[in-house]
């Protein structure tokens, strides 16, 4: 005999099911973030205290990752030269989705003290999408940690959509990259 106690559950559409799974995924994802640190700038000096016992990134569920293919966050610490921007674009495009970018210090925001250099780009979000900026020259470790917490909240609120933007506005990003770099492809005598 069929029970009268329970009504048949409403059939969910595919979008709704997807959304539920994404929510579950986001919950686990934001509590287990693996970070690839692109430490070419001086702000990288703020990361050892953030990672070790002083501030202990691990208690937020974050850890360092050695390869872009398995990392969730790309951390750009400090100034980016034109030459390393090419490598950053390569690295960013290799990362598996969803992927987030954190810009550390004032150099990725507006060039910082290198705003008039021939070798350093001024605005990182013209070339790759940035989810969180941590301002300061250099930001102290509290604000670095705060930036990570901000990113986790953004993932929870579904506002960390840089990687979707990069897909949707790919032409715009590619145009900017071409204007600054000439060509994104790396011609390097040591690799050819």
């Amino acid at each position: 005999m069929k029970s009268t106690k329970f009504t048949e559950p409403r059939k969910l559409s595919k979008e709704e099911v997807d959304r539920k799974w994404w929510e579950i995924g986001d919950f686990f994802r934001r509590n287990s973030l693996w970070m690839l640190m692109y430490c070419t700038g001086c702000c990288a000096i703020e990361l050892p205290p953030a990672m070790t016992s002083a501030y202990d990134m691990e208690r937020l569920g974050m850890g360092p990752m050695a390869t872009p293919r398995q990392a969730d966050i790309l951390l750009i610490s400090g100034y980016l030269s034109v030459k390393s921007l090419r490598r950053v674009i390569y690295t960013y495009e290799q990362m598996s989705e969803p992927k987030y970018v954190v810009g550390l210090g004032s150099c990725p925001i507006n060039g910082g003290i290198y705003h008039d250099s021939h070798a350093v780009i001024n605005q990182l979000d013209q070339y790759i999408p940035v989810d969180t900026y941590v301002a300061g020259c250099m930001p102290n470790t509290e604000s670095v940690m705060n930036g990570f917490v901000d990113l986790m909240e953004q993932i929870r609120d579904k506002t960390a959509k840089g990687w979707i933007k990069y897909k949707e506005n790919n032409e715009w990003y590619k145009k900017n990259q071409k204007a600054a770099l000439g060509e994104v492809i790396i011609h390097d005598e040591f690799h050819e």
Partner: protein
Amino acid sequence: MMNSMNNVEFLKGLMNQNFKIVETDVIDQYQVSFVLKQADVLQALVTLRNAGWIQMSYLSAVDWPDENKIEVVYILMNWERPVHIQIRTKIDRNDPVMPTIIHIYPGAKYYERECHEFFGVKFPGNPDYQKQLILEMWDDMPPLRKDFDPKAYSDRKFTKREYNEDYLVLSDQNDKKAKREARKERAESLKGGQKI
């Protein structure tokens, strides 16, 4: 090892005996600089290498736009007689050409490429002095020449962030003026530890 002033005397003797030195500058007991004619440079480097200055520490250039010259600088080091030597020579700025020294110091290969990239000095004899080394796809004049304007280049090439309003000066607000004055007065009154 001999004492260090003897090293400088030895070096000066060696150089004056073989070459016509334009200018000698003994900076201290470990650093000596010689200005030579361009034609003497290669011979001087060979002589110095045979005398023990086996390490080529650096090769670079200095731009002198007023004299219309580029000064090429070679820095050598000897581990037996601890003296750094600078060999300097001024060459024409409009068409700077310097013969390569990779057959004397093979390590100079990359320094010459760097020097060509940043100052535009040509090094015929070095098979790939024209290849890019540090700057990639550079499309302007050599950037370490004095008449290169990095700000103009940066403005042309890289997008700048635009701000809607200027930054806020918190230390100079008008509505806090009375408070500021009072604090200043109070600070004056406390000078010397005396309360008035």
